[in-house]
């Protein structure tokens, strides 16, 4: 009985997640507006965030260490596995699945910034990557 209930709740939760926007930009903007109704994403802020070299202050790696400084180019992980380009213009599979984007920004922000990124920061990053031609 307990199991059935848990399964039902899980199914409902999964259904709920699937109903949320699959587009990460929409999802992050909606989240950011809960805190700041006037929020509008800015590609320029996203680019600055991506390029910031935090190493001097914190000894942490930068986004560009893995993704290079041109998101249209492939990057490399620490174990030297190629990473497909981040910009959708060069890689149609990017930023098409909100859960995937959230998983990676979740991990990458903890490694690079040392904390989770805010919804506003994530919206800016995604807005910048989409704007690249």
């Amino acid at each position, binding site marked *: 009985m307990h199991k059935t209930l848990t399964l039902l709740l899980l199914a409902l939760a999964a259904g709920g997640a699937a109903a949320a926007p699959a587009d990460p930009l929409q999802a992050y903007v909606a989240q950011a507006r809960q805190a700041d109704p006037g929020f509008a994403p800015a590609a320029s802020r996203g680019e600055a965030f991506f390029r910031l070299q935090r190493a001097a202050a914190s000894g942490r790696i930068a986004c560009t260490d893995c993704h290079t400084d041109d998101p249209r180019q492939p990057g490399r*992980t*620490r*174990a*030297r*596995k190629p990473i497909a380009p981040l910009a959708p213009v060069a890689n149609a599979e990017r930023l098409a699945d909100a859960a995937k984007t959230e998983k990676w920004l*979740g*991990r*990458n922000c*903890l*490694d690079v910034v040392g904390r989770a990124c805010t919804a506003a920061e994530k919206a800016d990053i995604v807005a910048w990557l989409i704007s690249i031609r």
Partner: protein
Amino acid sequence: MRNHLPKIITLIVACGVSGWLFAGDHGEQDEGREGGGLPAVDHKAWRAECGACHTAFHPGLLPERSWRKLMDGLDHHFGENAGLDAATRKSITDFLAANAADRLDARRARKVAASIPSGETPLRITATAWFERKHDELSPGVWKKPSIGSRANCGACHPGADKGSFDEHAVRIPR
């Protein structure tokens, strides 16, 4: 019993020969196995999640206790965050455990398991005595080449690494 003996011998010989022929036939497609490699295994989430940042290391390269410990610490995974949701983590952990070096019935897996003292739980394949022994012909500088960069970059020298094939004849060291 006595007049059955020649028949039994013929049978044994026939089995041996066909087994040999079969192995010869198979060797072409399944060189991993013939090269003392690891059986091909697959698991969707494992390949996607554990193959995102590096080769999806074959479960037969570490014992079960190592995989369990590694999977318990994904939030601090060799200096990076590789965290997963609980359901995916459990599914991958079960797969790794079931195909671990001390669980798989393959010569290579048994050798790996036997080379690790029972009191040790290494998290790195590249830190095991077995790995050192297999790679002691390489000069230390090789690992630092930009085209290799890390001992964990198995695929740089072993083209079949993703499939668990480490046949020594297929090894090629990039320039």
